[in-house]
């Protein structure tokens, strides 16, 4: 430095915000944001408004060098339509002519305009998810060829890896809490997709359907779980700042989200056509979330704030999983829509109750019939009452062993009786014998605990709702 004046000023610049001050303002800001939410764009469309340039310019920049004639035509279309074509392209799947626009144009434009590492990570994860959704949609429509699956699998892996790396790199910018959050979030969403994929496999009675992608998803989930665990260790070693207030805030937040999720689930349940299997699963996840929240509350009371915060984060993950599953169910039209044939309806008398029972059975039957490609209403059961539980540590039933976020699914089947009894009005069925329950093949998926008894009750609850 030439003259001492500048030096002096630099020295003087030692007034800094303390960690405490920084954190407490942050808390205040977060609550402010919660009270004044931003208006998001309707879809993750072309953010051309950011730049103030017509979309056309960017489409040209983003396209690969060689383009066959008809792609040029499409570009012209897009320009002419003022973005309408690209909007339509959003829904396209591999095989559709507009799919090229969706992937190469829309997504690249958005990439080009995303700035911070953080948003980039989020966007890449979103792109990965889009590929998953495409697989799911194709599979549900029975149009998933090996070729397409391979292609989508590759793209998914690429994007998923990308987002993972970007989430990791946030560490280097001293944004460790955000990094762990990102990992957690990706993990949650991937799990939801895992459920859906599994379910599709069952429905289509083809365990190979999308299996490669599902494995890829599972690998990613594991990677994120590990990374998050690491980050959490590191974060915990850092300062404890006003944890109590933070915990209280978080608890309120989580409570809110949980209520919201429960409400969505309630709405979903009233839709009779919604897939029963998933509904059951969701109910259990809600219970898991509640238990987790209770545990967090206990820890907070015991002044174990960092533990409580982590527990709350776990709860949030479960809730996000629930929300995403519900959303996917709605988006994919995930109902037992296939073959609502009147197979068993003939057995339905005018009695409301038995009708409802049959409905329940019917929806389950529908699943069955998909699997057996027949039209019968029999439920095959074996007297196997062993239950394998894998599941989240949260919903612990002390009678059953618990494993960590499991990655295996097991089948547990329950004794049940003959069909004839299904015709009888439900109440008389309820407590007579093990035969009386409209038991179904139950699969324990990787995040559900399924004690037998609980399931039976679940059944009845479900049926009751339908009766109303």
């Amino acid at each position, binding site marked *: 430095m030439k*003259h*001492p*004046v*500048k030096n*002096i*000023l*630099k*020295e*003087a*610049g*030692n*007034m*800094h*915000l303390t960690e405490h*001050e*920084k954190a407490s*303002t*942050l808390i*205040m*800001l*977060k609550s*402010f*944001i919660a009270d*004044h*939410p*931003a*208006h*998001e764009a309707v879809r993750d469309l072309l953010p051309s*408004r*950011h730049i103030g340039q017509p979309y056309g310019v960017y489409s040209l920049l983003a396209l690969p060098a060689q383009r066959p004639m008809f792609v040029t035509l499409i570009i012209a279309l897009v320009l002419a339509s003022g973005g309408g074509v690209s909007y339509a392209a959003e829904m396209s799947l591999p095989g559709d002519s507009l799919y090229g626009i969706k992937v190469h144009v829309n997504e690249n434009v958005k990439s080009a305009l995303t*700035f*911070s590492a*953080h*948003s980039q990570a*989020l*966007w890449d994860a979103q792109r990965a998810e889009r590929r998953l959704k495409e697989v799911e949609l194709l599979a549900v429509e029975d149009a998933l060829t090996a070729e397409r699956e391979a292609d989508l699998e590759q793209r998914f892996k690429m994007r998923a890896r990308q987002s993972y790396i970007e989430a990791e790199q946030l560490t280097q910018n*001293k*944004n460790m809490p*955000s990094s762990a*959050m990102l990992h*957690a*979030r990706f993990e949650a969403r991937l799990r939801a997709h895992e459920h859906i994929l599994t379910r599709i496999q069952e429905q289509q009675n083809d365990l190979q359907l999308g299996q490669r992608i599902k494995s890829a998803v599972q690998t990613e989930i594991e990677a994120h779980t590990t990374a998050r665990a690491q980050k959490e260790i590191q974060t915990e070693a850092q300062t404890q700042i006003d944890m109590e207030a933070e915990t209280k805030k978080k608890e309120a937040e989580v409570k809110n989200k949980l209520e919201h999720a429960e409400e969505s689930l309630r709405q979903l349940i009233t839709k009779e056509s919604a897939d029963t299997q998933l509904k059951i699963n969701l109910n259990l996840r809600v219970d898991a979330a509640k238990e987790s929240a209770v545990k967090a509350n206990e820890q907070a009371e015991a002044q174990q704030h960092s533990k409580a915060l982590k527990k709350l*984060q776990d709860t*949030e993950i479960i809730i*996000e999983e629930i929300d995403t599953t519900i959303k996917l169910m709605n988006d994919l039209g995930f109902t037992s829509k296939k073959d609502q044939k009147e197979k068993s309806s003939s057995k339905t008398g005018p009695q409301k109750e038995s009708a409802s029972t049959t409905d329940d059975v019917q929806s389950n039957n529908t699943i069955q019939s998909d699997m057996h490609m027949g039209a019968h209403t029999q439920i095959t059961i074996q007297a196997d009452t062993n239950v394998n539980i894998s599941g989240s540590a949260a919903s612990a039933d002390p009678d059953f062993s618990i494993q960590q976020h499991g990655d295996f699914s097991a089948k547990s089947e329950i004794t049940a009786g003959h069909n004839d009894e299904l015709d009888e009005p439900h109440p008389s069925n309820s407590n007579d014998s093990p035969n009386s329950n409209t038991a179904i093949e139950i699969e324990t998926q990787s995040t559900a605990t399924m004690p037998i008894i609980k399931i039976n009750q679940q059944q009845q609850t479900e049926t009751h709702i339908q009766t109303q």
Partner: protein
Amino acid sequence: MPSSLKEQQFLNAYEEYSDAIFRHCVFRVYDREKARELMQETFTKTWVYLIDKDVQHLKAFLYKTANNLIIDYSRKKKEESLDAITEQGIEFSKDDDPDMHDIIDGKRAIEMLNHLEEQYREVIVMRYVNGLKPREIAEILGESKNAISVRINRGIKKLRAVYETPR
């Protein structure tokens, strides 16, 4: 967990810039508590703007907002006498004792800054306390890069004059 992209970006900006904005405020209003308030207000105002608009360069926007808030505040507190500053606990001592040099320099700097006019103080703080480049300062204040450089140099000269004034 924050759900929207905007929210994420905003909170990241807070992580990155809250301290810098705070320091900027401190060196303009000479009141730590007030500086904290102003920093907080800078961010809340920015968020309100972000609710239905987008911002290209968040960093510049934050500094602009902070600047405006500081100016508004200074207008209210028109007379910023040295007495007032002393009351807030910043004391000035004669720098006879060479061992006291470091402590004094900091306070000296503040005192000296106070002798400057607002326009010079503005750019000096941004340049040497916040470490902003002249280009960035120009964008924040909406002036040309040259004008800024010139002003910085003049400000330094004036400071030097104050510094070298025998006490």
